């Protein structure tokens, strides 16, 4: 018998985001699979009533809330107090939360305070033979394991896109307010804002249907013996503008940027995909001027359909890592792709 706490924070508009609703669905499924279990919801935010109303029909026996201006934005020192208070108030044995950047940076600390354990980046939560378990990847998406634990409370951070979002009826929820007392020490860090590139220069789009990866080949000497970085920039930005794809990169290309070489100016470490970069989720991915070496392609684990353009027919994409490898010059092909997209 488990007491499952679905834990979520509100978005800036006071609602619950897609990832939170996916975690709610996973928590409900787990509660249904473990006989005698109880589902409780715990919400954190500046105000939680509208979020509570949004999930009023989710079947939670209680909806607990920590709400105050101090909890409106992501800050470790205050969030850890809120999470601890909610988990204690619920007497939770399992806590399921979406793997947002906000929860990723605080739930392990809360688990420590409660003498519990935590698994982050879970990709599935199951109940088999009356025992809860989860799947997650190790060694940067290179091997997958099923994990079970006897220690409680057990915190689980579920990755986005791993469950269908809960889509039940809204209503009017009665929120039990939970006290999360703060001291001045909890307010020493002040969140001053968010820094983002201008909208027209934002190249990372997590919700895009296509990931476009540019490798270091875009900055190398072309058949005329010269590098054409400016033209490469134009081609890539033109393509991103027309398709609204998300831009990824290899480590070698973003490292060149860091070393101050004349490369693609819009490329930063945030674009990096792979071992020391991100592992984005998109239905399709197109790699260009990139060899598809393992440290990069581990970041493609959750890209369903994969195509690549590379001059080398023996590159790693040809070794079972892509569905289609076009052996061609990406400069030429992408120029023509842009022309076709413009004519549409």
């Amino acid at each position, binding site marked *: 018998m488990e007491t499952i706490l679905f834990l979520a924070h509100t978005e800036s508009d006071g609602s619950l985001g897609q990832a939170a609703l996916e975690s709610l669905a996973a928590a409900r499924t787990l509660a249904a699979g473990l006989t005698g279990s109880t589902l409780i919801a715990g919400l954190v935010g500046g105000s939680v009533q509208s979020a509570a109303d949004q999930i009023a029909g989710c079947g939670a026996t209680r909806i607990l809330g920590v709400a105050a201006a101090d909890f409106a934005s992501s800050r470790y020192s205050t969030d850890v107090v809120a999470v601890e208070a909610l988990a204690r108030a619920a007497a939770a044995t399992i806590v399921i939360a979406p793997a947002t950047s906000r929860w990723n940076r605080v739930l392990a600390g809360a688990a420590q305070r409660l003498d519990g354990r935590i698994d982050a980046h879970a990709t599935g939560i199951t109940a088999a033979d009356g025992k809860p378990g989860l799947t997650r990847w190790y060694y940067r998406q290179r091997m997958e*394991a099923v994990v079970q634990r006897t220690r409680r409370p057990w915190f689980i951070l579920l990755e986005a896109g791993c469950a269908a979002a809960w889509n039940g009826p809204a209503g009017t929820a009665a929120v039990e307010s939970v006290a999360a007392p703060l001291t001045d020490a909890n307010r020493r860090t002040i969140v001053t804002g968010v*820094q983002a590139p201008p909208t027209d220069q934002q190249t990372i789009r997590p919700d895009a249907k296509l990931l476009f990866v540019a490798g270091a080949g875009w900055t190398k000497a072309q058949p005329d013996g010269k590098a054409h970085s400016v033209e490469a920039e134009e081609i890539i930005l033109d393509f991103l503008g027309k398709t609204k794809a998300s831009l990824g990169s290899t480590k070698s290309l973003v490292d060149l940027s860091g070393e101050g070489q004349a490369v693609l100016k819009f490329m930063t*470490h945030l674009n990096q995909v792979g071992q*020391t970069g991100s592992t984005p989720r998109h239905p399709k991915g197109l790699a260009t001027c990139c060899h598809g070496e393992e440290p990069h392609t581990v970041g493609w684990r959750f890209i369903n359909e994969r195509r690549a353009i590379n001059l080398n027919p023996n590159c790693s994409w040809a070794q079972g890592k892509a569905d289609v490898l076009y*052996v061609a010059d990406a400069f030429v092909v992408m120029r*023509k792709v842009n022309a076709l997209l413009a004519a549409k």
Partner: protein
Amino acid sequence: MPTSYHIVVCGSIVPDPLQTLEPVTTPTGPALKNELLLPAVLDPWAGHALFEAAHLAKQHPGSKVWLVSIGPKAKLQQVMMTVAQKVPFELIAIDGPAGGFTESAEIAAALAEAIQGLPGLDKSRLLVFGGWESATRGAGTTLQMVGERLGIVDQFQGVDQLTVRPDGSFQVLERIEGGRHQVSSCGALPALCGWATGNLPEPPNNPQVGMLNMRTVMPALQRAKPTKISNEGVTFPSVSLPKQRRETKIVKDMPPDDIAREIVEWIGKE
């Protein structure tokens, strides 16, 4: 606010990313096939944390950098031969497992104990650094628990930039969704930063720094305290490699016009 820092970097070793990894079952749980024979490197994000620490220490004379590392002694020694040539630090070695299937809470306990035992450590000048996630477990949980054990509540994860202001307070940029950064300022120490990539390139090897570091690295390795990680309460019913290997269609000699048409059609398909 202090003008010099005690910076403790937590960082371990990982198999070289170019190696093929295969899981095996051992009496103590899952592990990697030939784990002790695989070439190892410093965990990449922990490496960035170390380079940022050294950079910060250089800017603030009187600062000191420790690298607290848990791993099999022989592997640590091998990796330190290279790392020690990069930046100045004092190694605190803990002899224990460094694999991905070890329990982060137990690793955190060992790291926190080692940090608490550092002679002369001044908590009012303390910055704890590390990689925000390892390349083994990749959970991003260990540092938070180290911070909690040390009583540090000003914690930041996915850090790409830390800027010390003239008044000694500092500004931190943490990665959040959508390629953005959350900007925070903090006016007190101790604090903890789990670094992402940061902005610094890997420093070139400097044999002089290497010689200086090796004076403390070898004794630290000899003194390394053995730590047992029991993985209490956790079981792994299965560990497997992804089975999916794609049947790659290699398209040669297709005119660029046709390739472009095919790609545009593919992109447009639902």
